[in-house]
């Protein structure tokens, strides 16, 4: 059963002006959200500077707790350096032309901050930025895959990173060697309930 069938009123996320039953998708944004899936193999084609600009601009448009923006990102495109970083990242399967190192920047906090709460939020913000990056990649016809399996210290050394930057996720990106293949998702009725869990 869909949300709309369960509720007489449209879901609160619907635009107020949307006629019942319609599903506007200006620019195909929803299609981009629905059709992204990880790409782990890439052609050798590099990503253009214009595309890199579009990716990083979308990335830093992500929401961030208290607008703190306690993040920092390193875009690696130099092939030899990229291959050395990849050697310490078992979760990066393919050989992408671009590797993003998405970091939590601990220098952005003040002494008065409730370090525990704010710093936990910081990792969430980095993850949201990474999702924006991957969705932008998909919208541009590129592919991407996040990786949490990597060793931060060797990567920090290879990239001359200061101690206050904590790598949270790596993202490989490039031109897909094959079309995106959607992975299985649990049934939406199993994971989404409306108004109460009962």
């Amino acid at each position, binding site marked *: 059963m869909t949300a709309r069938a369960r509720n007489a009123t449209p879901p609160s996320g619907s635009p107020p002006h949307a006629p019942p039953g319609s599903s506007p998708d200006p620019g195909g944004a929803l299609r981009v959200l629905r059709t992204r899936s990880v790409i782990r193999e890439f052609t050798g084609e590099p990503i253009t500077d214009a595309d890199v600009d579009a990716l990083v601009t979308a990335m830093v448009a992500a929401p961030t707790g208290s607008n703190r923006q306690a993040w920092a990102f390193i875009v690696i495109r130099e092939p030899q350096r990229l291959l050395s970083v990849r050697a310490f990242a078992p979760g990066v399967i393919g050989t992408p032309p671009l590797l993003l190192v998405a970091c939590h920047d601990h220098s952005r906090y003040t002494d008065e901050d409730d370090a525990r709460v704010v710093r936990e939020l910081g990792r969430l913000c980095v993850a949201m930025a990474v999702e924006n990056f991957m969705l932008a990649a998909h919208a541009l016809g590129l592919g991407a895959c996040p990786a949490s399996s990597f060793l931060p210290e060797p990567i920090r050394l290879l990239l001359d990173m200061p101690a206050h930057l904590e790598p949270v996720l790596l993202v490989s990106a490039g031109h897909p060697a094959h079309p995106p293949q*959607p992975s299985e998702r649990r049934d939406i009725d199993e994971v989404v309930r409306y108004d109460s869990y009962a």
Partner: protein
Amino acid sequence: MTATPDPASRDTELARLAAYLLASSRSLLTEPASYGPIRLIDAARRTLALLEPDGAANPHYNTVKTRIEDSHRSKTPIDLPTLLDELCLQMAHGLKGIHTAQPQTDEHSEPA
């Protein structure tokens, strides 16, 4: 590969492979045990990829590498015991070709 290695880069590639093996080993101490075979399979793929620039490609090794790449792409669960049995057999075929192509000097290869 996006990076075309220069002729002197074989040592670097091997060093990166060693780094990959060490990094995998370290990561596996805190990752699910089921990742272990996957990392080793990927190490085999990375090793076989190093053979290609020399033109040393053997069809059996290529088959193994391609099948590993296909398995990375698969969105359905892989039957690892079957896949690994088949990959090992394929590697044995590749290696057998070397033994039959070369004169046998090893005492263990003498007929019983």
